[in-house]
């Protein structure tokens, strides 16, 4: 597949980043490089034996300080199909419970020979902190309300595959924008690639400051959905809210949930996406489960491919 940027230039540039901390610090060229590499590597996953020796001898530490299923397993799957060794860390049952500082934890693991840290943390900026103080490479697997760059990259890959472009699209992101690192990274990412991003949802979860990132904040969900090429629903994250920002989940489903009727506003061939896990019946109506526009499971597969690409890009090896 040929890659063209928003100015129509063929993108065959090289990759320059040392870490994947957020989308903002990646160039357009970096992003295309990763997407292209991911498409190449994705083929491996369809082989009878979906494994190559590219990263044999490399040690990858999965540092999940916060709960995760999809992202952690996706990274693990990516590392293993490239033959990297993995160390799995969870904050519970570790020295963190004995009061060890993050820096000490990282430096100790580095002494064991870790080449790359994959970090999920409830506090924004933690992967940046590790990158600053460690010799190893760092991939941000989600930090607080800040960024989730690998999710945005897999979303971009999914959109690119279907739409053959990342520019000139209308992307609608619906839901809890305020507490969503996925929204943050996708706003920055799709804006960078030349698309418009509209965000809508309950206004208590719709901070005006997102406009600083280049998103268009809409108070009517219809404005965001109108003629959208991509509709992305976000999970209502009940566990994040110190205080109730919503009267009830029922009201959310009624006012902001996506269903067949609401999707009629979007382009006929729009893509329906969700970073998962989905609360069916809340942000998405069950009638959308088998809808042809629904590409949620393709996102998951692309997630493995994108993470393989990032591991190869950062740890070298010939794919």
């Amino acid at each position, binding site marked *: 597949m040929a890659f063209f940027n928003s100015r129509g230039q063929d993108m065959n540039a090289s990759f320059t980043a040392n870490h994947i901390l957020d989308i*903002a610090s990646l160039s357009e060229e970096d992003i295309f490089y990763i997407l292209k590499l991911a498409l190449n590597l994705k083929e491996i996953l369809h082989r009878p034996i979906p494994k190559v020796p590219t990263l044999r001898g490399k040690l990858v530490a999965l540092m999940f300080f916060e709960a995760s299923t999809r992202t952690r397993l996706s990274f693990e799957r990516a590392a293993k199909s490239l033959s990297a060794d993995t160390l799995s860390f969870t904050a519970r049952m570790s020295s963190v419970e004995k009061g060890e*500082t*993050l*820096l000490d934890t990282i430096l100790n693991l580095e002494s064991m020979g870790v080449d790359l840290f994959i970090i999920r*943390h409830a*506090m*924004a*900026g*933690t992967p*940046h*902190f590790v990158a600053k*103080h460690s010799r190893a490479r760092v991939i941000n697997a989600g*930090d*607080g*309300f*800040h*960024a989730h760059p690998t999710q945005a990259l897999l979303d971009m890959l999914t959109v690119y595959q279907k739409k053959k472009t990342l520019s000139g699209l209308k992307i609608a992101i619906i839901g809890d924008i305020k507490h969503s*690192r996925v929204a*943050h990274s996708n706003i920055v990412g799709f804006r960078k690639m030349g698309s418009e991003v509209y965000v809508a949802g309950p206004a208590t979860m719709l*901070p005006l*400051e*997102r406009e*600083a*990132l280049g998103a268009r904040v809409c108070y009517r969900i219809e404005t965001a959905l109108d003629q959208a090429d991509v509709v992305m629903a976000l999970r209502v994250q009940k566990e994040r809210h*110190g205080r109730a920002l919503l009267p009830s989940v029922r009201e959310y489903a009624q006012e902001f949930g996506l269903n067949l009727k609401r999707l009629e506003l979007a382009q006929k061939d729009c893509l329906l996406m969700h970073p998962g896990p989905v609360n069916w019946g809340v942000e998405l109506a069950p009638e959308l489960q088998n809808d042809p526009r629904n590409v949620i499971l393709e996102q998951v597969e692309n997630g493995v491919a994108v993470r393989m690409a990032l591991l190869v890009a950062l740890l070298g090896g010939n794919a």
Partner: protein
Amino acid sequence: MSLLLQGGRVIDPSQGIDAVLDILIENGQVKALGERLSGQGARKIDCHGLIITPGLIDMHVHLREPGEEWKETIATGTLAAAAGGFTAVACMPNTQPPNDNAEVTRFILKKASQEAFTRVYPIACITKGQKGTQLTEFGDLKRAGAVALSDDGRPVPDAFMMRLALEYAKNFGLPVISHAEELSLSQGGHVNEGLASATLGLKGIPAEGEAIAVFREIMLAKLTDAPVHIAHVSTKVAVEIIRWAKKQGIPVTAETAPHYFTLTEEAALGYNTYAKVNPPLRSAEDREAICQALSDGTIDAIATDHAPHSDLEKFIEFEQAAFGLVGLETALALALRLVNQGLLSLSRAIALLSTNPARILKIAGGSLRVGSPGDVTVIDLEKKWVPRKENLHSQGKNSPFLGWELQGQAVMTIVEGKITFSRM
């Protein structure tokens, strides 16, 4: 022992003096100010080409003693102050234990009398344990040596409690200093709400929260006719409210800190914990409004809010890192930066750093009038220097100005006629 400072350009806003004069200090006091003083038997110090001002006074510092001596002590904090040209500091009461009773006040003053390089003026808590529920013993604290009251670090959440404090402080003539923050809006925040919170994915602290709290304090000052002083003003909206209040004749004074007139929220981008401070660094528009307020008199004083932390509190995840930065050694150069940019006159800068804080706290100093305390700062306006971890005297190295090329530095600090710090 007497000192004769010869040939310096004396700037004393309290008397409207800006002239090349000699100054004689004897028995810890300014003895004479004039041209070509003889000063027989006095140690003569050549100050040609240098500026001589009343000793600088920082009305808002954290010395961390008692209780957090790994961050700073009265000795190291006042050494940093002297190195920065300050002859007096007023220390905030959020120590461990907090300065909410006369015994702690006496401890601070005793340590200061033994170890300090500047005068130390303790500020006591408004409420017991800074909990906002019960007033401290203002009379007892004043007798022990407290010069003002503040729950700095946290506001008094309840307006009625603040009203009581302002009223009761009138009995003792103690100024009340407010850390103006609407907690319900700022709770859980780490940086300015706006560009910084959006970019960093952190909960923001809105400028309007400061404005709401400032307005409350001003209304209470009006209601009680008791003076209130607003600490570390950081926002344009707060400045506008204070300007309005002063026009109405409401007894309010205000300070800001060098980081608010020098930096913006962009300093925190990249999760720089040395730029994590409360109130947070604000927008460029706020910064401009602060500069304007310094020059037009809306803001009365520059105070550093010197908040030393060790890297144990700063070398960690941004959300867990402590708020605060050190300021004593860079404040003068940063104020002079505004002078060099033409935003302030030199005399106005000295008023903000010396004369006005003395007036607000009702303490001696801030003037070179004959009979005033012999507290003097000698400044080299031309001297270029770069703050680095190695050359800061404070135990806290948490400065966002490390590596900056600054111009202007105190070259001699004299407290009560004694040289406490010298680069001459």
